[in-house]
């Protein structure tokens, strides 16, 4: 038996019996992914598109009901563009750039998330997590039709695992009973309470925040603005905070801070929730409750994201508070980082050392996310009198003085991580160039011809980008053919973001669109070296 732990919103991969369940010896797969949440599905899609045989096991048969994540960041959309499913997300999603912060009844300030032109994708869209996952699965189906070696098995529950030298043996429970399979590599994308992590006896250290938040996703027709509205100490939730945010399908996310000592059951009674909602939106607007839940949160991380042939990605490796929308957005950066490395090692193009860099780079990213989301939590939930003292002082000052604005912390929204100090980075050959395109940074989008730069960097391997500088007709790097993109730029955003004061630049760009190295001119030797470094062949 495989018990359902939650209700599904969409049944996307109903259980079907497969041949593996009847073979006398366990069948071996290159990559087995435990968990078909956004991270597991994203990884399967990325690996499948690279021709890597991978199998997703999920203990349910579809996407869980109830939207947890709603805010998807620009970098996530760019990753999904690379994976082929950015468009349906942006088409369905609600685009927003403006945030407003209130205290009591008055607005204390407003901010624009992306006060910068020249990006294909907006700073954020709001989209219910079930849709996000559905679009990933739909793209997997399209890729399967084109021959991508991905398989999804619903109602397949991992129950135990044994690591061996060259594979991992998995015990899987199904509605037809247990069976075994082998995996060359296992990626645990099984969420914050990761059973894989438990089975391996690995820790998940961090901090629990003593606070409760009530989420009420409601459906209503209302002409509230498409903005993120955040309240400190509003009349309808005295002494606490509140958040209002629009989602597709006339659904709105309302989030009420509640403090630590609450009667969960009483607070979850629909009538009680409805009266809270009316306090916020007024008595006159009709609405229905779509999904409600009370959550508490913690900020935790595993020590190591790699244990031999087992990798941890997404919430199984690290968990953050929801403030800043860094959970799923961070998890998608794990996918982006791990897929090309696993593919390169499995294809024999890179040594095992490349996989080590997954832990180094993504732990760096996770710690940055944890730091930011913990700071927000400390601002919202003062833990001692001094915290409250300074928070109130900041809020007192901000109404009159601009300087206090950056001190208000209602969420530092997810931005992609730059892998400074990564072992995969080449020494910066253009140190006077713009800091935002230094080695380790994700490529910043910019208009290019009729489209955008990132649209030209979606192919599989590495890309050599040259700006105002000629490349040889056929570039070979460390014995590999490499795709090139030669462009001209002057006085435009590409020049501003990639050249600064330099007349020309050559950049080596990784498959995950991070900069591996940059130079003022084409230099075959430096490039060979940088490529080897970026492939973990040091």
């Amino acid at each position, binding site marked *: 038996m495989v018990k359902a732990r939650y209700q599904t919103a969409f049944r996307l991969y109903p259980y079907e019996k497969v041949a593996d369940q009847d073979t006398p010896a366990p069948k071996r797969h290159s990559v087995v992914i435990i968990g078909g949440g956004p991270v597991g599905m994203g990884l399967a899609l990325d690996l499948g598109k690279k021709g890597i045989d991978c199998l997703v096991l999920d203990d349910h048969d579809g996407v869980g009901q109830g939207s947890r994540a709603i805010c998807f960041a620009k970098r996530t959309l760019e990753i999904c563009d690379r994976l082929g499913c950015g468009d349906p997300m942006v088409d369905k999603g609600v685009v927003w750039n403006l945030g407003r912060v209130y205290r009591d009844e008055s607005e204390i300030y407003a901010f624009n998330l992306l006060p910068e032109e020249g990006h294909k994708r907006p700073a954020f869209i709001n989209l219910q997590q079930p849709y996000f996952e559905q679009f990933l699965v739909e793209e997997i189906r399209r890729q399967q039709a084109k021959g991508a070696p991905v398989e999804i098995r619903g109602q397949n529950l991992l129950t135990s695992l044994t690591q061996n030298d060259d594979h991992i043996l998995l015990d899987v429970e199904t509605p037809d009973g247990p069976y075994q399979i082998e995996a060359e590599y296992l990626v645990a994308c099984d969420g914050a309470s990761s059973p894989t992590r438990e089975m391996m006896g690995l820790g998940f250290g961090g901090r629990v925040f003593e606070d409760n938040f009530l989420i009420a996703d409601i459906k209503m027709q209302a002409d509230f603005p498409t903005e993120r509205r955040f309240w400190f100490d509003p009349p309808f939730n005295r002494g606490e905070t509140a958040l209002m945010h629009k989602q597709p399908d006339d659904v709105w996310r309302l989030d009420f801070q509640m403090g630590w000592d609450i009667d969960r059951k009483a607070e979850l009674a629909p009538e009680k929730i409805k009266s809270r909602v009316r306090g916020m939106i007024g008595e006159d607007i009709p609405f229905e409750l779509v999904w409600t839940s009370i959550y508490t949160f913690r900020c935790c991380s595993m020590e190591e994201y790699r244990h031999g042939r087992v990798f941890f990605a997404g919430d199984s490796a690290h968990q953050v508070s929801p403030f800043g929308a860094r959970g799923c957005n961070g998890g998608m950066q794990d996918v982006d980082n791990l897929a090309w490395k696993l593919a390169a090692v499995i294809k024999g193009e890179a040594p095992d050392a490349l996989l080590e860099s997954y832990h180094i780079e993504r732990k760096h990213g996770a710690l940055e996310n944890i730091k930011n989301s913990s700071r927000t939590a400390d601002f919202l939930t003062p833990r001692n009198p001094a915290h409250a003292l300074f928070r109130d002082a900041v809020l007192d000052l901000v109404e009159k003085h601009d300087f206090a604005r950056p001190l208000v912390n209602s969420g*530092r929204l997810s931005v992609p991580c730059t892998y400074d100090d990564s072992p995969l980075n080449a020494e910066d050959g253009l140190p006077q160039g713009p800091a935002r395109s230094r080695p380790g940074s994700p490529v910043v989008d910019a208009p290019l011809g009729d489209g955008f730069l990132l649209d030209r960097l979606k192919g599989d391997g590495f890309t050599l980008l040259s700006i105002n500088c000629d490349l040889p007709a056929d570039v070979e790097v460390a014995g590999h053919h490499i795709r090139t993109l030669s462009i001209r730029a002057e006085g435009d955003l590409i020049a501003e973001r990639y050249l600064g004061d330099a007349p020309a630049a050559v950049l080596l760009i990784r498959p995950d669109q991070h900069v591996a190295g940059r130079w003022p001119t084409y230099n075959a030797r430096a490039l060979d070296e940088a490529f080897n470094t970026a492939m973990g062949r040091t």
Partner: protein
Amino acid sequence: MPDLILTPNLEATDDFYEALLNAHEGLDEADIHALNARLILILANHIGKQSVLEEALAVAGA
């Protein structure tokens, strides 16, 4: 022209705020007051200029 800077000027806002809160970790009310008094005196000395300090006092008291 007033000399007191009232536009954002911190080099690393969030790092500073975290350090400020950390400095208060575990203190009782009297110790919090004492710490803040010392901190104000140290920063005042660093600023030095009387007109700026008087303006800051006025802004904080307003």
